[in-house]
């Protein structure tokens, strides 16, 4: 079996499962944020069960609209705090304490290899980077999980991507996953698992692996996953307590399809408006004028991303009439960036640093676009209206490409700076 099948087999107390089978699985951890949480809570109350199935396995994070950007979101936050208190939810990350939910889940040790984690957020697939089966569900389904601790899941087919070669300078994880989505399309892995392996993946740090698994859902995938190795174990050792039972794909595991990819010729990639699979090499869109550049989100708002950005803009100035918005993905990332002097470097270059939040990525607050404006963003979605006006254009790229573009005021190949 491959890793996804093994985790689903374990979660449903079976020896073996195969693709297409529907299993009833026990959920290890369930996560909600301030957009999906209130609806889940409201629905939970309608079901009529008094207590959640396990108050130690639910994680609640305020991230999309923090600090509250309107009286309405403040009400929703209040509702979540009340519920957490009433149900004695052990892990509640309030304003200032957490950050973007997926980053918080990973760095606070809620993601353990071998476990089944459900989040009421589509990018829950991120957790596969640590060898967990993470998948997104809606609020009603989450209410049912709160009540029962169980969910029905169809065992997915898995597409495997073996990645070899060597990245050019300033080309990396984001460019790889954008190019994969460009190749297979926005529904290229619909209902399926995407598994990543090969020397390039093995060489990658955890941050890059998170970027890759995070975007699996943009190809429709149920999860993105990587068999855990020593790097993963070293990363989680500091963060997770209790026993860990990692699972890995067998050497003879079955896959629906296997892609062999070579990253050596890959140039920086850009997803053009208004779908994530509209991917082009940067050379084809170079020179497109921009009004805003955004670095943040659960895709690329980690310390490694801020380091790249700081390196590129150090001692230089963001182009006149361009906003560079930087939103560290979590409190931990923010603190680390503070300690390393990155926030100073970025601010000196003209960046506007925001508190950890989904913010601009979600089109909620802190960096929305006006009619006719163009933004290049390190986030994961460029849908019409995603970042404010439906008449704005969004390009997705790596933090390096975004930072380079901010300096020149137009889409720029970071290798040429």
């Amino acid at each position, binding site marked *: 079996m491959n890793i996804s099948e093994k985790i689903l087999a374990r979660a449903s107390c079976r020896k073996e499962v195969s693709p297409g089978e529907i299993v009833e699985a026990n959920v290890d951890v369930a996560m909600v944020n301030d957009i999906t949480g209130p609806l889940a809570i409201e629905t939970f109350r309608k079901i009529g069960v008094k207590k959640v199935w396990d108050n130690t396995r639910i994680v609640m994070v305020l991230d999309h609209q923090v600090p509250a950007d309107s009286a309405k979101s403040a009400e929703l936050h209040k509702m979540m705090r009340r519920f957490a208190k009433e149900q004695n939810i052990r892990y509640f990350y309030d304003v200032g304490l957490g950050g973007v939910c997926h980053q918080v889940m990973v760095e606070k040790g809620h993601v353990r290899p071998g476990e089944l984690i459900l989040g009421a957020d589509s990018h829950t697939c991120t957790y596969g980077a640590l060898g967990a089966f993470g998948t997104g569900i809606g*609020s009603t389904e989450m209410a049912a999980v709160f009540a029962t601790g169980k969910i029905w899941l169809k065992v997915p087919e898995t597409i495997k991507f073996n990645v070899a070669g060597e990245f050019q300078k300033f080309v990396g994880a984001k460019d790889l996953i954008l190019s994969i989505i460009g190749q297979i399309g926005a529904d290229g892995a619909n209902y399926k698992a995407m598994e990543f392996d090969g020397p390039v993946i093995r060489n990658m740090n955890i941050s890059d692996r998170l970027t890759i698994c995070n975007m699996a859902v943009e190809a429709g995938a149920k999860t993105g996953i990587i068999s855990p190795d020593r790097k993963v174990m070293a990363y989680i050792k500091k963060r997770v307590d209790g026993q860990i039972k990692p699972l890995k794909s067998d050497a003879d595991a079955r896959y629906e399809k296997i892609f062999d990819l070579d990253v050596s010729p890959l140039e920086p990639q850009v997803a053009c408006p208004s779908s994530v699979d509209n991917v082009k090499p940067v050379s084809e869109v170079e020179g497109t004028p921009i009004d805003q550049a955004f670095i943040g989100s659960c895709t690329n708002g980690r310390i490694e991303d801020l380091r790249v950005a700081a390196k590129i803009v150090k001692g230089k100035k963001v182009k006149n009439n361009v906003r560079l918005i930087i939103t560290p993905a979590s409190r931990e990332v923010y603190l680390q960036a503070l300690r390393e002097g990155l926030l100073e470097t970025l601010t000196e270059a003209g960046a506007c640093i925001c508190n950890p939040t989904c913010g601009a990525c979600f089109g909620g607050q802190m960096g929305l676009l006006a009619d006719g404006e163009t933004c290049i963003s390190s986030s994961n979605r460029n849908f019409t209206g995603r970042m404010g006006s439906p008449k704005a254009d969004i390009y997705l790229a790596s933090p390096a490409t975004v930072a380079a573009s901010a300096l020149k005021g137009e889409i720029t190949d970071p290798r040429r700076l």
Partner: protein
Amino acid sequence: MKVRGKAVIFGDSVNTDVIIPSKYLTTLDPNELAKHVMEGLDPTFYEKARGGVIIVAGKNFGCGSSREHAPIALKHAGVKCIIAKSFARIFYRNAINIGLPVVECVQILEKTDNDDELLVNLAVGEVVNLTKNLRLQASKLPNFILEIISAGGLVEHLKRRLGKNGKL
């Protein structure tokens, strides 16, 4: 279980950000959400949908954000069923869980025009285009999913299972 209504056609990869933009997510009121449904794609949709319609679409319907506000807004605007070539998986589950029938039918887009009268037989997995007098094969939903839909959604379904002691 049968559903009947006039067809309203959309294309491929209709994402949940356009079904209901993030700026409206601060409300949990389904009727308020419904007023803004599909606003970006078709500002007249809310008017059209009242009284009940069936959405016909291409592949990957409902991709993107997991927001359940999207199927809720559609349902409360008057959408009785969605027939698409394929659905994004979270949207598919969300729709079933709130009792909005979703049916996969490969030929649907080619064989349907706006305002055609459609009759969907969920239990059998068939779409009948009454205007054109055509029968199309569609996905048949497993029984446990039909049970959820006929209960009106997952909440009602669970309520039926709930014991007197408040335990499932």
